[in-house]
């Protein structure tokens, strides 16, 4: 009968629409990242890795780069920048160090997640080399100097005089251990 067929077809289509919206919910996650990258919102660091040549150092201008180190809730490590503020010329590559100390008696794994303020500056900060790319394991009472090579793009808008680079240190020991136990051959988390 045609009415029953029409009902069934409509129900199937609407069910399919619901299924697509379920997929769309998941799609929001990568879309959000793309949106943040395009607009430079959220202070996410997007320029990582080596910089192409041809950038001239602007000796006329100085930008203050401030470093912040924050422990996430419950993280017992000592985590500090060696210098809290450096002065750089745009276009110049600079090396800075952060120091981490694991004061506990057990081995732990941490990950530092960066954020840049003001968010407008995020797309002008190049990080050539950073400890934040990989997870950091420290045995009990072990300490480590962690290097960071950065460069401010000469195209940084003139009104920005200070850029703050903040790292939050997360304890990912339990996650790493759980994943190692599940898949012995894998090397820690990589997301």
């Amino acid at each position: 009968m045609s009415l029953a067929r029409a009902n069934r077809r409509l129900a199937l289509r609407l069910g399919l629409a619901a299924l697509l919206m379920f997929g769309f919910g998941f799609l929001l996650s990568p879309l959000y990242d793309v949106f943040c990258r395009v607009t430079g919102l959220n202070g996410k660091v997007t320029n990582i890795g080596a910089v192409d040549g041809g950038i001239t150092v602007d000796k006329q201008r100085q930008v203050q780069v401030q470093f912040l180190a924050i422990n996430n809730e419950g993280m017992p490590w000592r985590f500090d920048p060696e210098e809290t503020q450096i002065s750089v010329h745009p276009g110049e590559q600079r090396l800075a160090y952060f120091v981490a100390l694991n004061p506990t008696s057990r081995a732990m794994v941490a990950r530092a997640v960066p954020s840049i303020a003001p968010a407008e500056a995020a797309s002008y900060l190049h990080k050539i080399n950073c400890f934040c790319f990989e997870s950091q394991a420290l045995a009990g009472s072990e300490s480590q100097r962690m290097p960071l090579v950065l460069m401010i793009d000469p195209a940084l808008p003139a009104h920005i005089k200070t850029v703050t680079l903040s790292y939050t240190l997360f304890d990912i020991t339990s996650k790493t251990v759980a994943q190692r136990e599940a898949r012995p051959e894998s090397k820690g988390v990589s997301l």
Partner: protein
Amino acid sequence: MLTETMAHEHPHGPAPGLMRWVLTTNHKDIGTLYLLFSLIMFLTGGCMALVIRAELFQPGLQLVQPEFFNQMTTMHGLIMVFGAVMPAFVGLANWMIPMMVGAPDMALPRMNNWSFWILPFAFSLMISTLFMEGGAPNFGWTFYAPLSTTYAPPSVTFFIFAVHMMGISSIMGAINIIATILNLRAPGMTMMKLPLFAWTWLITAFLLIAVMPVLAGVVTMMLMDIHFGTSFFDAAGGGDPVLFQHVFWFFGHPEVYIMILPAFGIISHIIPTFARKRLFGYASMVYATSSIAFLSFIVWAHHMFTVGMPLAGELFFMFSTMLIAVPTGVKVFNWVATMYRGSMTFETPMLFALAFVVLFSIGGFSGLMLAIAPVDFQYHDTYFVVAHFHYVLVPGAIFSIMAATYFWLPKWTGNYYNEQLGKWHFWLSFVGVNITFFPMHFIGLAGMPRRIPDYALQFADFNMVASVGAFLFGFSQLLFVYNIIRCVQGGYGAGNQVWEGAEGLEWTLPSPPPYHSFTTPPVLGDQREPI
């Protein structure tokens, strides 16, 4: 096809015994089940609200521990939103939409049975978390990650599955309503002659199909973060907790319109009936409802002005939110214009409808205040927000459901309810609601945060007043229950028409209507345009 087979199986009415209710595919039976379920959930969630208000009667901790208090606020919100308001509207849709459009039953009766019977299981699962180790979910009904992932009690997994189940139920219900309205209208009933309750429900059903899957998606992401080592919302793994709020409110804002659009439909039936005039501006009502539904998808971030959005974002969401006041204003204007120079009488449904118009508008105005991004930084997460959304949900959605119950109860049962008792119920509820929620505006503006079991001394007086009002409102609902029970048992017989000024196909049927109404399509045209 299904409706026809069913008609052959039971030509003379319902099957006897308890299995009638388990196996039923009849829209009236399923509507009754939904409404009863909703009433039970309303009373359950109401008891939780009274636990909250009893604890907040005085500053300091008297009755419950903060952990349990948090479980109460969370469960109260979840039960009222997903267990009381939404199923009540689906129940009303099941009862009324086939009769309003001149159909014999819902388009997909078997799925209808399924979508109801998932609900008791979903809510048993949800309520059972109260007795689990670590207690029930305690992170608020908005379940922001990582509070609901990293720091959640173990019972969060059961909560996630309960949300999945009620989501499936809502989506199936929505599909059924759309199919009924689009495919089963009586000949001659064009879309612009559709009764407004059917119109608002049609739009609501599309909203449900669009956003309930997103809710299912966000709880699935939580499930994966908790159990499968992903990092959607975990900053340590490269995720972002703010993403949770975006995805949640992408669902959440259309969800609040899901809870109010059917109410607009109900009020648009009741006010013309008791004003004895045709609804003013039928077409503008349809367009206003559609605009509200569209706008609901682009305003979600006004719930999260304080997360650190850029100025452009704050401005966009502020102005798009304020834009919603325009179609809502059109609706309120139309209701008032319908009453203008009408021959009004004030039976219980009309009293509730009038209270709806006034009190919902108050809730709308406080919503406009919250929409102003710069001042929202002060109002955010205070009792002002609690006052705002309770004004739009209790004397908004809940009053419309009560109005609908009194309005259609004589049609469903064939008996008038006790008008005197109905008026008592209304006035006690009206006074109780305002005593409960109006002071919350003041304590919110003065800075009392929401979701806390204890508070600073300067908030004591208004909290005591609010608690007294809550108990008045809560216990006056027993009159409602008693009135319904007495009405079902018997009473003054109602004719087909029930209310003098009522219009629409449902009033051409006997009261109570036969088990299978409109087995042959009714003829339109011997009446005026339906409201």
